[in-house]
């Protein structure tokens, strides 16, 4: 099911200004019946003030098409034609509290109906300036027609290029196969083939560390300081030696050194550090590092 906002649902179940306006003097008819969304907008415009005194819609379409039509009429009533022309599809979507990416075209249709109706009132002919394709990138609502046009006009040849130019593919990345298909098609027209020898993309940590190195070191130090009195009671102690990446090197001193429970103690300390920092850290006896260096060296 679509994730419609409560406002979308309200405007669908209780549409405002449904039906044609009586004695309308401006009409805009837009949409595509093959896609399943089409809208007739009728306006009553005061010829002297150029104000929209009434607006009505008749829509063949889904829930969000009807809600967008309803929202449009609410937004433009009372506005002058020039003010109304400033209304964007984003305004309609925002009025509704947002629309799913697959449904953004419903708000575009609303804006276009408005432009067509105003052109009709002014005795002009409105021309559609864009063609809509199948939705490829759902994260940024970019369709195939736009991607293909951008690839062709800019001689693009990689998914990364397409992301840089259009944002498509820059989110969850699951549409990359679809983008590659479009690139392959356009390249084929030029007698070229796509380069499949690109290296695997560099992996960047999903979540950059929340802390700088200095901050992390101070936090570790604080946790260890808090633990020390406990160890000292058992005639032992612990010394922080170094922190390297996510590894904390420590020296166990006194009764703790060589204690049978050393591993357990270290485990407990590690647990405290991990909990405090909220990221994974390893606590290792410093003597192990020396051994490792020797083996490695």
């Amino acid at each position, binding site marked *: 099911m679509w994730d419609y906002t409560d406002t979308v649902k309200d405007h669908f*179940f209780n549409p405002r200004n449904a039906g044609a306006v009586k004695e309308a003097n401006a009409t805009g008819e837009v949409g595509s019946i*093959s896609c*399943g969304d089409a809208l*007739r907008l009728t306006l009553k415009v005061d010829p002297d003030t150029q104000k929209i005194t009434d607006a009505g819609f008749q829509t063949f379409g889904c829930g969000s098409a009807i809600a967008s039509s309803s929202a449009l009429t609410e937004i433009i009533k009372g506005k002058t034609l020039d003010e109304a022309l400033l209304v964007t599809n984003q305004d309609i979507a925002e009025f509704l509290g947002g629309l799913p990416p697959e449904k953004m075209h419903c708000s575009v249709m609303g804006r276009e109906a408005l432009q067509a109706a105003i052109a009709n009132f002014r005795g002009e002919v409105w021309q559609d300036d864009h063609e809509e394709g199948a939705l490829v990138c759902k994260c940024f609502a970019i369709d195939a027609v736009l991607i293909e046009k951008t690839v062709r006009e800019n001689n693009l040849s990689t998914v990364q290029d397409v992301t840089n130019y259009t944002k498509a593919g820059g989110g969850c990345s699951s549409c990359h196969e679809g983008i590659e298909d479009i690139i392959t098609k356009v390249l084929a027209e030029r007698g070229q083939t796509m380069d499949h020898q690109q290296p695997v993309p560099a992996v960047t940590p999903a979540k950059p560390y929340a802390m700088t190195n200095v901050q992390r070191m101070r936090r570790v130090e604080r946790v260890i300081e808090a633990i020390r009195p406990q160890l000292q009671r058992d005639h032992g102690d612990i010394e922080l030696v170094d922190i390297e990446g996510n590894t904390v090197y420590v020296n166990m001193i006194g009764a703790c050194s060589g204690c049978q429970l050393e591993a357990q103690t270290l485990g407990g300390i590690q647990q405290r550090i991990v909990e405090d920092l909220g990221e994974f850290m390893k606590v290792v006896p410093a003597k192990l590092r020396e051994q490792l260096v020797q083996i490695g060296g």
Partner: protein
Amino acid sequence: MADIYLDNNATTMVAPEVVQEMLPFFSEQFGNPSSMHSFGDKVGRAMKQARIQVQKLLGAEHDSEIVFTSCGTESDSTAILSALKAYPDRDEIIITAVEHPAILTLCDYLEKNEDYVVHKLRVDKQGRLDLDEYQDLLCNKTAIVSVMWANNETGTLFPVETMAEMAHAKGVLFHTDAVQAVGKIPLDLKSTKIDMLSVSGHKLHAPKGVGVLYLRRGTRFRPLLRGGHQERGRRAGTENSASIVALGKAAEMALEHLQFENTQVKAMRDRLEQGLLAAIPNAFVTGDPTNRLPNTCNIAFEYIEGEAILLMLNKMGIAASSGSACTSGSLEPSHVMMAMGIPYTAAHGTIRFSFSRYNKPEEVDQVIAVVPKIIANLRKMSPYWGENGPVADPDKAFAPTYA
């Protein structure tokens, strides 16, 4: 009013008896059926029984012809890709224009990226095939024919038994995606020439995530998943034993209820259809009403759009589905409606009501009471609808600029 579920071609409720049957396999019966101890042995025996239960429902000759998979889509992919590997000198595939995406998308991919020739049989306005066209396409280049037994949107049945005979006469393998037919109409595969058949558990009151590929003994086969010896090496991967046991029980119950499905369930479907058509003008049944599944009815409500109808129905607690573009976020209405030549103004307004044996006759009355008002309310908002019916010459009266 309790919610009414009329979307059983999408998925079905897991039968309570089936849930009971599978529960032990999440707890004490956790063994791996391949293991050499009693933990595994008990699970292995339960799976053997499930295999026999499915064999009986399909009317297969041997229980070893039943290969458990993860879903209908896996069964479909396995069947087609197996045929292409087993017959490397053949590069043509015959399907229909109205197959499920599990077949269509795969074949489009094979055509585009692997140079196979895919023939899509056309359908007429009632969704019926032209067997002469089919006969002409069968040749020694055909690797496999894949034709659905029943259409998921309209319920229209294809003559797959005849088509399998025709394929065999030309030495061609025949597969059928029967996920909508199994459990709804009687099957007897041993008396047919069908080589492979796909089943989906969740369409017949088993859980999601389990399916079957029926594989006639002796059929040349190449597995999709290679690995362990599960399913006699034809589908590697540790078995989903709880769901397989569940599917066995569901198959047994489906067989017991076949008559009920074709009498009582069919009667509910027919009454709903007649009731809606009598109360609503400019509505018609799509597909072939004389030759279809007993549980499915697909009605086109002209001049309004399906998603809007579904949202209104949902508000009234009624679940159904639509062939409109908007419900799937695509740019075209259902390919099944387009293949039948249903005009856009009707195709977008198609609603599928699909029953199961768990529906109640009184639910039919409740739906008939609600739907006409919903349709009328939406039509009031439609640019194609006037005071008391469609505007004269609708396509000319409203001709929007393409956007």
